[in-house]
């Protein structure tokens, strides 16, 4: 169980609000479990990393393994930057007050810095102090030394864990997989006792029937399952190849997916209680601002206006002093708890902002901040271990490389190369490039890879042949459910997901991104410049083209060999 439990877990950063429970559970049963079982079985049977395993299944499929490695390589490149940011926040959590809870003062100390006033202090700390973000992706700026240092540290920690190979990684993963549970439990207790947490929980559990009809909810649930289980990266195959052949991977697949999903649901309870707290806090401060504005404009008695009588007093003032009220009216914001709860959470940057904003309002915020970022680091490092294992196992499997260099040197070189490339993400425009990688490096390619895997095992290798292999290996017969899923339902599901994503990309026209405007203190939408679009195309093509190119390559070599052997025969 130790090696298999190293499912690279996506931390509760990609949460989808709304009634995702129903599509989530259905997608888990229909798509998650069968595909997980398939990958584990393939790894355990072939006893090689992803490249070797797929080459054994069928020589035309060596491209699938290479595509997995390429996707894992992209993921390694950019994912450790999240850990670097988590380290940055962790180191800054040991101050009183927390640096993102107060705005820094301006030059003559009469007020706060303008950018911080317009945005909030947490946004200012994220966009200005952490990222030092530039206004657009074209202006790259220089490498920021603070995030660069944190990135070097993050890669050092990863190197320390993978230094001795996957056997030692297994021991580390016990730590990185179990400790977040402790922190989650602590946060659960704290989160449920926060003021306003019930609002968030009520929002999470009220099913919104109209959202179920929206295909977006199902698509998001399917993508979430995909990424949280880590399908298609090759890390599962790599880890399963170290298992005993008689290992009961079916039981493990079911257990792992159930544990993974219940962890996700558990984490989302914590998340939603914290969202509820944050939303309630923001709602109440919005109300207080309106109350203060009205009290000051009309010189009402201090304490007279409360949240309960606000509407009545507003109506009275509108009727009694119409001209003055109309002057003040544009500044009065409409505060609503619903809009606060519905602020969608997407992207790692927004998650950093949302959680830190909630934490800064808790008592003893340093403790909660340290705990939270420690948990985030554990989850992130755990994911990184899976990704690097996916790259390293094929490298160490190949006789060519491992004969020249020892294991430690190969790991060191991989870490060094990724660290050097990762410096790109610490530049001023680095966050925009990070978003590009985050959105496009993995999504389409993974769908295609998993589709190719399922089709290959079922139809190229032969479902009956695989079934007999498994029976010989584990001693158990294959349930009809798995056969039905592998053969029919899962490939269809993946094809429909794929078509949906493609049509989504095509229908939106040019791709857009959110850029931070320092003057306004908010995000603005801009179009990607041509070179960024080229990079996106390259990312998607680099991994997806491996599959047909691999098949083509094998075809050509076979033809050449047949040509060579023909005259002899």
């Amino acid at each position, binding site marked *: 169980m130790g090696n298999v439990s190293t499912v690279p877990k996506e931390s509760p950063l990609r949460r989808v609000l709304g009634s995702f429970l129903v599509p989530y559970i259905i997608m888990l049963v229909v798509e998650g479990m069968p595909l997980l079982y398939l990958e584990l079985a393939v790894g355990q049977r072939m006893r090689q990393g992803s490249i070797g395993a797929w080459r054994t299944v069928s020589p035309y499929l060596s491209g699938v393994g290479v595509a997995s490695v390429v996707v894992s390589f992209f993921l390694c490149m950019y994912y450790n930057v999240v850990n670097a940011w988590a380290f940055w926040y962790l*180191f800054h959590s040991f101050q009183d007050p927390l640096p993102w809870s107060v705005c820094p003062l301006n030059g003559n100390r009469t007020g706060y810095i303008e950018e911080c006033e317009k945005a909030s202090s947490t946004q200012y700390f994220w966009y200005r102090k952490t990222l030092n973000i530039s206004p657009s992706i074209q202006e790259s700026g220089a490498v920021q030394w603070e995030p660069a240092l944190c990135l070097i540290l993050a890669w050092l920690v990863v190197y320390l864990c993978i230094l001795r190979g996957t056997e030692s990684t297994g021991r580390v993963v016990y730590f990185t997989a179990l400790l977040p549970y402790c922190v989650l439990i602590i946060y659960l207790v704290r989160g449920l006792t926060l003021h306003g947490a019930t609002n968030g929980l009520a929002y999470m559990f009220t099913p919104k029937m109209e959202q179920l009809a929206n295909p977006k909810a199902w698509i998001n649930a399917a993508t979430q399952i995909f990424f949280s289980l880590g399908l298609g990266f090759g890390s599962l195959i790599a880890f399963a190849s170290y298992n005993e052949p008689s290992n009961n991977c079916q039981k493990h697949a079911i257990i792992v997916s159930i544990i993974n999903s219940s962890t996700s649901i558990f984490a989302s309870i914590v998340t939603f209680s914290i969202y509820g707290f944050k939303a309630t806090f923001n709602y109440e401060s919005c109300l207080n601002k309106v109350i203060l504005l009205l009290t000051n404009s009309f010189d009402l008695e201090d304490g007279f206006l409360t949240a309960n009588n606000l509407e009545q007093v507003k109506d009275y003032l509108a009727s009694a002093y119409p001209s003055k009220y109309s002057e003040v009216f544009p500044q009065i914001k409409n505060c609503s708890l619903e809009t606060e709860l519905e602020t969608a959470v997407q992207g790692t940057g927004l998650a950093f902002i949302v959680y830190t904003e909630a934490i800064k309002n808790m008592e003893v915020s340093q403790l909660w901040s340290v705990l939270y970022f420690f948990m985030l680091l554990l989850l992130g490092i755990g994911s990184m271990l899976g990704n690097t294992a996916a790259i390293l196992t094929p490298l160490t499997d190949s006789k060519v490389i491992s004969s020249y260099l020892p294991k430690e040197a190969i790991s060191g070189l991989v870490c060094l190369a990724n660290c050097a490339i990762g410096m790109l993400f610490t530049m001023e425009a680095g966050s925009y490039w990070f978003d590009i990688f985050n959105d496009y490096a993995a999504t389409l390619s993974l769908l295609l890879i998993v589709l190719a895997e399922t089709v290959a095992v079922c139809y190229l290798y032969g479902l009956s042949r695989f079934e007999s292999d498994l029976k010989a290996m584990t001693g158990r017969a294959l349930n009809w459910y798995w056969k039905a899923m592998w053969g029919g339902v899962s490939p269809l599901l993946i094809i429909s997901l794929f078509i949906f994503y493609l049509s989504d990309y095509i229908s939106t026209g040019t791709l857009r991104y959110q850029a931070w405007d320092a003057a306004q203190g908010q995000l603005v939408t801009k179009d990607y410049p041509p070179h960024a679009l080229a990079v996106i195309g390259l990312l998607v093509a680099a991994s997806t083209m491996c599959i047909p190119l691999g098949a083509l390559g094998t075809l050509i070599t076979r033809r050449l060999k047949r040509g060579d052997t023909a005259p002899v025969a």
Partner: protein
Amino acid sequence: MILRCSLSTLTPRTRVSLYSVLATPWIPRTSSSGYTLGRSTPPALPFLAEPDLEKPQRSGRSLRISGGNRPVFLRNLHPAFYSTCNNLHCTWDSFECIGLHGQDAENAFKVRLSIRTALGDKAYAWDANEEYLFKAMVAFSMRKVPNRETTEISHVLLCNVTQRVSFWFVVTDPSRNHTLPAVEVQSAIRMNRNRINNAFFLNDQTLEFLRIPSTLAPPTDPSVPIWIIIFGVIFCIVLVATMLLIISGIRQHRRKNKGPSEMEDSEDKCENVITIENGIPCDPLDMKGGHINDAFVTEDERLTPL
């Protein structure tokens, strides 16, 4: 709403005319909020009948400005306006001060207190004594300015006190003809802001002087940022652990490499032992290398035995 104006700014001439009109009594009335309201009916002066907050009104020799945008002060008044004043207070429901515009109005500042927000249950009521304390604090602040050491409490005028508890104040010079320039008052208040806040148990946010920005507390920046210290500690720990692992890995490698060669050495030793221990001394050919020329075969050996 209670209006309190200090009458000490009056010149002796107007004061005389004031006392001559002080005949009409006024009846205090308590409002629901606990403040004492005073509403008096002046002798049939139509333009004093109803305070209209919306429209500016012209009355007598001065302009009454509404809405509290700019304060106005008692100066050169129509005597009738004083009909409701006694020795110390003018009380008039929603009455604004009437007076000068221009420079004097520029030198006045609005103050806003949020006592209930700051103190909650322990909030005190804002009454004449609190105003006296406020005037004392302002006078104290002005006394710290060079050339203004002779500022008295009576030189500070408060006006237009509202339920919010907000009011305007201005500081006059000893001759009581001019108001002190805004810059002086501003710098004096800024210097002593902390003392003024503490006198009222308030802070910069709950005792606001509009147009007087407060100096915010400087950030306590340590010489070395804390995060670098923690980063250094963790970096060193990870580096040391990595070095240890690498070195132990290299040692293991060396031990593995030495292992097979050590095995060979021991085999040689065994052979030597065997040759010595064995009764039959069978020396390996190497030992005899150079001693026996194997190319030369003895006669006996060439011929095979029958």
